């Protein structure tokens, strides 16, 4: 099991009367750098879309079948695994019931079953997830992970049905989502990935799918500790304004709070390998007198009820403006990163709705923030959507020759952040 350490970055000095305390807490699992193969029990399900559209062109389904084979090949021996084919219903194609342990024979049988797949039918993502959920039920002790690939909109169920299924799956397994082509909705997959603590991305070209599946399996296999929760104690009379994962991607955890005691709540963070994540936490506290110091929050990591690693978020009220007016570098950086994600999403939304003025304003702001924050990858994606006249002032012009795949890539990757430069390698 991983060892966790937590470290707080904040300016604890508040001006007279101030009531909001902001801090970035970096949580690190183990001190060892680089990915390693995990040792804990793991369960893996690959869910591939076999709806009719996957056959148009046929290269999509062929790429999905090949990528699934690559994923299976990269499973650690002994990992319980299975493959689900999804249409307007869900079908376990290997094995037909439950999961099997990965071995040379089971891998070969699984790939043989996958090679038989034919396109046909609709799309009901919730049904696929429900089958994965019931299959994982026999593997509660394992770190359960799924890969979900689709190419189309979730047409054959209502949004409410999907939401209900997601509610049932939350905390049971994690799911990374991929959209192939450009006919799927970023919002659909973001909803799934967000609820199931996974990632979302676009694979515009079928050729790139196999490499991406391998990377996802490697990441899943490197997880050593499942069901880790971030625990936050706050003083009586305080209110949590937000708890937001800000690195490696932005994910608002505020609504996921599960109260464990008065003044204490847990926020699920899923499985961890040897990695570091940053959280931006904002707490409203009753203002106190000059010179008073308060513990505004105590952050710890909880695994199976055991607390591991903790850090303090403090508040000290002062009338010394040299102290209180400084904004902590990490807090400022991630405030900008969150605004960047929001500006991109709102800008693209406005662009789709035909509101050119708002789109220009928001995407211009995004360019400015990306340039300022050192988000070079995001800046490159932004340049596919706007012509940049001046990144410092955020002066941009909307492009008219925008490639749909590039726009979707910008949307899905808008929440990907970079860390403060110079702080860590």
């Amino acid at each position: 099991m991983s060892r966790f350490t937590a470290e707080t970055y904040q300016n604890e000095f508040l001006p007279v009367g101030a009531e909001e305390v902001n801090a970035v807490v970096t949580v690190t699992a183990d001190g060892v750098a680089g990915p390693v193969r995990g040792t804990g029990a793991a369960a893996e399900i690959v869910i591939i879309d076999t709806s009719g559209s996957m056959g148009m062109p046929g290269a999509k389904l062929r790429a999905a079948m090949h990528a699934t084979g690559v994923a299976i090949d990269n499973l650690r021996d002994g990992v319980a695994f299975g493959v689900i084919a999804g249409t307007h219903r869900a079908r376990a194609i290997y094995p037909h019931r439950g999961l099997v342990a990965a071995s040379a024979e089971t891998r070969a049988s699984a790939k043989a079953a996958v090679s038989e797949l034919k396109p046909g039918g609709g799309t009901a993502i919730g049904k696929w997830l429900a089958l994965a959920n019931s299959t994982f039920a026999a593997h509660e002790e394992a770190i359960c992970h799924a890969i979900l690939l689709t190419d189309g909109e979730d047409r054959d169920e209502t949004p409410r049905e999907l939401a209900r299924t997601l509610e049932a799956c939350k905390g049971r397994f994690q799911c990374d989502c991929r959209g192939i082509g450009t006919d799927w909705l970023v919002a659909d997959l973001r909803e799934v990935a967000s609820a199931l603590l996974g990632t979302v991305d676009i694979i515009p070209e079928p050729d790139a799918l196999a490499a991406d599946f391998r990377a996802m399996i490697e990441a899943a296999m490197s997880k050593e500790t499942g069901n880790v929760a971030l625990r936050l104690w706050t003083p009586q009379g305080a209110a949590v304004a937000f708890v937001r994962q800000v690195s490696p991607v932005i994910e608002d955890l505020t609504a996921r709070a599960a109260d464990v005691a008065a003044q204490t709540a847990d926020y699920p963070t899923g499985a961890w390998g040897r990695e570091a994540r940053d959280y931006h936490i904002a707490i409203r506290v009753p203002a106190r007198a000059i010179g008073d110091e308060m513990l505004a929050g105590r952050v710890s990591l909880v695994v199976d009820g055991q607390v591991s690693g903790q850090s303090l978020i403090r508040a000290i009220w002062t009338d010394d403006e040299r102290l209180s007016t400084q904004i902590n570098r990490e807090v400022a950086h991630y405030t900008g990163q969150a605004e960047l994600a929001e500006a991109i999403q709102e800008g693209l939304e406005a662009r789709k709705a035909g509101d050119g003025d708002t789109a220009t304003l928001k995407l211009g702001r995004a360019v400015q923030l990306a340039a300022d924050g050192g988000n070079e990858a995001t800046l490159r994606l932004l340049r596919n959507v706007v012509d940049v006249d001046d990144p410092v002032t955020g002066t941009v012009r909307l492009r008219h020759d925008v490639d749909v795949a590039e726009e979707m890539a910008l949307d899905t990757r808008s929440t990907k952040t970079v860390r403060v430069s110079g702080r860590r390698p």
Partner: protein
Amino acid sequence: MTATAFVCSRCGAATARGDHFCEQCGGRLAREACRACGAGVDEDGFCVRCGVRARAPGARLEFDVDGAAAVSDRGRVRPHNEDALYLDAGGPGVAAVVCDGISASTNAADAATRAAAAAGSVLSDAVRGDAELRDAMATAMRVAQAAVAQLAVDTPMDPPACTVVAAVWRADELIVGWAGDSRAYLDSQQLTTDDAEAHAVTRWLGADAPEVPPHIVATAAADGRLVLCTDGLWNYPSAMAELRASGPPPVVAGALVQRALDAGGSDNITVIVVELPLAGRAAA
């Protein structure tokens, strides 16, 4: 002053400040309780309920024994607490010392700590033995002066310095010695005279101290409330108004310091409160 209650960390029952055991479950009570809400204090020094800092390393020292209590608080402005104290009320009498490190000197906190410990241990031995208290006080002052002067070896150009006020009591004899502007009171009567002119002390302990013998006065005192304090307390008249407040020593000491903090707490604040005669060890 608002009655601040300790809360028993075992059963949560409210208890009066100064109680040593919980009346409900009999558990030993933590000495510390949050000054803002009365709840317990965690290992980092924060209140477990309202989060307010109850203790910073070196920022506040608080203890009490039967019939006596001491509080030393950093105050609201100074970055460090350079006051020090010594209190022994566990024997047949009382040995108490309060020192105030002079901030203009280097190592002021060390000076105060050394002086209080040196003088205190001499007075403690005297109370527990049969030495003449007046002689013991003279020795205590000499030993304290030597201890602080010795610190100057490292910084001869800027020798560490502190004030001292010490009291030793046994039966009905009370001896007070001092150098500087830290004070002793019996009830509301000031026993000391300040060695100070225009806010600067004229006597102190340290390598560069003027070569004059320390003040030593004797008082016949079978009972009364003995208070030793630094100028961080007596500079606030509103705090000194609490000198005659009713209540056991921990309550009075807490109230005195709280008043000084409320009034601004511009300096370190240290106070020792002893109720004479000591409970259960009444003088003949």
